[in-house]
């Protein structure tokens, strides 16, 4: 993208405005306005008149509500770390092209395209008490009793991993294989071993992509909703903050309180992003993207 130099004439004429306006108006009316109105609504509790923080106070003083924050962190943080770590390991190992690349990537796109609901139904069957997974382990003599892998915390983690690992892996693979391979060769020529090449040369180059991966996976898992309902215990161990917001909106019809919970959810997601960005700043920055394999 060309940087605009000072004094350069703006190229925004009447035609450009006419072209931009429809989509811009759409985003403003359907995204910015509801968002801002949601914040306003959250400050106007149903039972009171005027602006007040009553909804937020209610959320953070009611244990049934505020524990959803811990529950959600308890799902999102481990899931993000595991997904990104495994994806990085694999993508790094396969950075110089892989055997059957097209077939593997095509299969990996499946869970992304099939969507979370179909995956949930499949996981309920496959990992269920009488499903193939337990049948195989029992037949192999590895287990005496079938494992309970669904309708609990494990079920939610399984579903999140199945959904997000392919997405994260393909993203990192694209990023890593875009790094100029000659940098790695130079390091090797100068006598660096595989670990030094990874930690001193490649990791700083991968850091920006890694930060994006961390951010996207964290934000997505913090908003976990359908898998927490279908594969977890939506009234107990996996009652995430998104479920709390949904229940206020569509079971108690308290849109003001629901908006407040949605705002809290957004703020925690933002906080997660800020932490990731600050952490990435501490890593060495090296904007050396070459023209490697596309």
């Amino acid at each position, binding site marked *: 993208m060309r940087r*605009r130099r000072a004094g350069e004439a*703006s190229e925004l004429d009447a035609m450009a405005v*006419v072209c931009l306006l429809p989509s811009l108006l759409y*985003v403003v009316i359907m995204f910015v306005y509801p968002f801002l109105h949601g914040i306003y609504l959250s400050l106007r509790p149903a039972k009171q008149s005027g602006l007040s923080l009553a909804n937020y106070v209610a959320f953070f003083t009611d244990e049934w509500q505020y524990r959803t924050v811990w529950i959600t962190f308890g799902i999102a943080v481990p899931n993000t770390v595991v997904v990104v770590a495994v994806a990085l390991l694999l993508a790094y190992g396969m950075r110089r092209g892989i055997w059957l690349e097209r077939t593997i990537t095509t299969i990996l796109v499946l869970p992304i395209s*099939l*969507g979370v609901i179909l995956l949930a139904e499949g996981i309920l069957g496959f990992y269920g008490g009488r499903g193939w997974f337990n049948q195989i382990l029992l037949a192999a003599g590895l287990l005496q009793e079938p494992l309970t892998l669904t309708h609990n915390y494990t079920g939610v983690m399984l579903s999140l991993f199945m959904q997000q690992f392919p997405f994260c892996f393909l993203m990192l693979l*694209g990023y890593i294989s875009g790094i100029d391979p000659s940098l790695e060769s130079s390091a090797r020529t100068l006598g660096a071993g595989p670990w030094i090449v990874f930690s001193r040369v490649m990791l700083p180059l991968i850091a920006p992509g890694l930060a994006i991966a961390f951010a996207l996976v964290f934000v997505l898992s913090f908003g976990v909703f*359908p898998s927490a309902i279908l594969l977890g215990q939506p009234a107990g161990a996996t009652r995430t903050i998104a479920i709390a917001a949904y229940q206020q909106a569509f079971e108690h019809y308290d849109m003001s309180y629901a908006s407040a919970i949605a705002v809290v959810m*957004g703020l925690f997601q933002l906080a997660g992003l800020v932490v990731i960005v600050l952490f990435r700043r501490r890593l060495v920055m090296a904007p050396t993207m070459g023209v490697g394999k596309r």
Partner: protein
Amino acid sequence: MRRLWSLALYMFVLGFILNLLGIVSHVVVSAFAKRWFGTPLPARFTTEWFQYAWTNFDLGRVLGVTVFVALAVVVLALVLGFPAAYILARRNFRGKALLLLLYFLPLLIPQMTYGIPLATTLYRYAIGGTVTGVVLANLVPMVPLAVFILMPFIEQISVNLEWGAAMMGATRFQVFRRVLLPLTVPGLLTAGILILVNTISNFELTFLVSGAGSQTLVVALFYNVFAGGVRPVYSVDAMAVMYMVTVMLVLLVALRFVRPTQMVFRLDQPRR
């Protein structure tokens, strides 16, 4: 050592893929099972659950809504997104980075976070719960998606072609109709197919905004999985198979035009 390491990597990928295929085929086998209870395969197979699901879940109408919503979203997202993508690809102006950020937000922020305020707003204006509402809500992330997919395609078309056409006396509309549009067809196809797949399998926004008569296939599937035990699990699986076939058909077409990694995310910077 190196060999062992790369073998371990392949074993993991293989294991993941086997689990994935297990998950998907479990649904398919169950959909055709007469009864299935703790055996490797059901004793008898039947297709009656498809008949059952079709009539009991009102799938004819649900499928109709799904197709209508998906096509409407594709057309509207392309119509709204194309002009913006053109300007963003060709022009420089103050605030362009800010504008790009604004378009990026609906893709970055999870749908549950902005879906609740959006649903509240749509219900307040009595659009919530209708098919129109579902289309309007799905367009929120899809218009920006169209813009971001089309931009690099337009950047690749030389401006000289437009100038040349204009010099030969073509009007603005003619340049658009005869030069720009034909050259952007690959981009429009890519964007259209990705939006189609995304809209069919998109759950959260549709779930929050749809009412009784405006459910798409995924949302109807969610309610039936959620109410597990009310209906025979085989019939829910039959419905899941019909959903899967719908997505796979679109996906098969998609893979002819689109590289799989493109479906995930575009990380590479716009070229030059």
